[in-house]
């Protein structure tokens, strides 16, 4: 226990030094993600503090905000207005202040900025128990450069704070955009995009409803490396260096579990309420490679199978199975039929395959449209 007490004292002293120690000029990024104003500004603090607020220390986050907004904020220790946008807790809303992806437990007039800091201001809305409900997104694993025309993967996390500490969680269903194309993150928070086909630069951003947009890192798009010359002696192969800690890879042998949602077995529908959107989920320990459906229709003595390519029913023998068609690789799959299903007795089946090649059992159900 005395040991722990010593650590506590040391920690408090360190925090005191960080907060109060005089600092030199620092270049920091101020990101404002309001409802009506958004932008990122890089500023250099000079130690001038905040005019009219002597409590705001030189080189504080308050001074950085002063520089980033050209003084267009209310200059209070507890910020209520930035660029005319006010959050006064009238509807449990306030300007949250974060530093480097974590909720700041120090006020902006006391926090002394460090070179390279990212200061984030955004409107937070408290829910029950004074817990915030709006969390910022961040992109991780963003490459400095990607190869033109090639896929690349980034991860989106949301940073969640309980007021004392901030933790990360994968952002599921967030949209990552490079300005031209988009991809949606899966259960692991990862999204794969295809780089533009030619060199240049792109700017990535992750967005999601009720979340704060991520910073917008710029990524270089470089031309693919030229193919090796077809002639001439082959260079000596590089020596193979065995990995010092090569742990045996865990082999995933667990198949995914695919299910259909929103429909019950033997359910009956009127023609007007016939299903149009088919949906369901796939549970797996790893990534999902594909989700496939097949849809069989029986009407009187005739049978037909839905063709995913032409998006039409084609007559088949009632003894034959319908063909599978792919509906993506999302753990939360959905498929919008071109129109509501016509009268008939239907059998809908789903199966999924994970990245390790394990295939799920077929989930099947029948329903009727009168």
């Amino acid at each position, binding site marked *: 226990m005395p040991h722990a007490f010593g650590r506590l004292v040391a920690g408090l002293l360190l925090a005191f030094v960080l907060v109060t120690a005089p600092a030199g000029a620092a270049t920091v990024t101020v990101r404002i*993600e309001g*409802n*009506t104003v*958004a*932008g990122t500004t890089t500023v250099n603090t000079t130690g001038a503090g905040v005019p009219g607020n002597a409590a705001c220390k030189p080189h504080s986050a308050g001074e950085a905000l002063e520089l980033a907004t050209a003084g267009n904020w209310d200059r209070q220790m507890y910020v209520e207005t930035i660029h005319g946008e006010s959050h006064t807790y009238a509807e449990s809303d306030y300007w949250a202040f974060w530093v480097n992806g974590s909720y700041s437990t120090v006020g902006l007039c006391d926090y002394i900025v460090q070179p390279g800091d990212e200061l984030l201001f955004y409107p937070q809305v408290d829910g029950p128990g004074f817990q915030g409900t709006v969390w910022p997104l961040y992109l991780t694993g963003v490459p400095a450069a990607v190869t*033109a*025309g090639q896929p690349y993967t980034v991860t989106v996390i949301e940073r969640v704070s309980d007021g004392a500490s901030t933790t990360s969680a994968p952002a599921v269903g967030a*949209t990552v*955009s490079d*300005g*031209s*194309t*988009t*991809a*949606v993150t899966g259960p692991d928070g990862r999204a794969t995009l295809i780089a*533009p*086909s*030619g*060199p*240049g*630069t792109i*700017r990535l*951003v992750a*967005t*999601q*409803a*009720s*979340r*704060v*947009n991520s910073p*917008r890192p710029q990524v270089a798009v470089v031309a693919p490396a030229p193919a090796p010359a077809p002639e001439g002696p082959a260079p000596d192969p590089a020596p193979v260096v065995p990995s010092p800690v090569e742990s045996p890879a865990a082999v995933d042998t667990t198949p995914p579990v695919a299910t259909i949602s929103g429909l019950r077995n033997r359910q009956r529908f009127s023609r007007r309420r016939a299903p*149009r*959107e088919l949906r369901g989920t796939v549970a797996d320990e790893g990534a999902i490679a594909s989700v496939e459906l097949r849809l069989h229709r029986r009407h009187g003595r005739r049978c037909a199978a839905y063709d995913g*390519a*032409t*998006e039409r029913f084609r007559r088949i023998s009632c003894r034959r199975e319908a063909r599978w068609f792919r*509906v*993506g690789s*999302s753990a939360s*799959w*959905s*498929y*919008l039929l*071109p*129109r509501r299903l016509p009268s008939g007795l239907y059998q809908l089946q789903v199966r999924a395959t994970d990245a390790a090649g394990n295939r799920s059992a077929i989930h099947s159900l029948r329903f009727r449209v009168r």
Partner: protein
Amino acid sequence: MSARRLVALALAVAGLLLGPAAAGTAATPAQRAVAYLERAQNGDGGYGFEPRSQTTPIATHWVAIGLRAAGRDPADVRQLGGDTLAEAVARTATAELDDASTTARAILALRATGGASTLVPRLLELQLPDGSFDGRVTTTAFGIFALRAAGRAPGDDAMRRATGWLAGQQNDDGGFSAAGRGGASGVDDTAAAVQGLLRGGRGRGSAPVRRALRWLVARQRADGGFPLLPGQASNAQSTAWAIQALAAAGRDPRRLRRRGGRDPIAFLRTLQARDGSFRYSRSSVQTPVWVTAQALLGLARRPF
């Protein structure tokens, strides 16, 4: 005649009488899409990629362009007590003007609001010495759209250089790739290039336009739609791009039916959900605001 049959007959007669009137008041796909976008607007007048998500310049500008194509004035689009879309466009138009794509799109969005653009000098600063914008086909096409929207004539020096660069990027197969010659031809890039060449002054019968259209038409899938790249599934945005290119070249997209299947506009309509939004594809609902805005351009058969 039993009472039940009498009621059924009466209902049938009433249906016949009221049917045409009811059909006359039914909202068109475009009207439903406009209504969806109006509901998806944020209080600041802008849009995120999804309803109620944070405003971004990209989504805001695409919605302004899409609504204008559908005949809706962005100055009239606002949530109760909120800013108008036109105000949001004006506010976001100057954000992140460090790349030509954003700048060109901002100019188009400002034009969609009826506002004058002061961003043309900035766009011209971003034009590369080779005449392109960012060295990318689609961005260069957007640069041409923006310059034309701002009143520049095809004979203007910046326009000529951009159009010349664009024409030089055509692949041997007739298609275009995002960066130009050598990359895999794609639908979006080819459709953008067709419109860029036409807006840049090339004739509908010119060889680059004819070759590009031939490549494009051959990419239609059995479902009637167009994919981003050959072999992929059809999606709403690539289909909208293709419709725009066909319309720009004077072709009627409704007559484009692969093996008697759907035309691209009919395919687009099948992606409309109950709430009026358009899905990206059968199996993806990504960025519904952006997709719906772009689908409006396709439904209206309105080129850039």
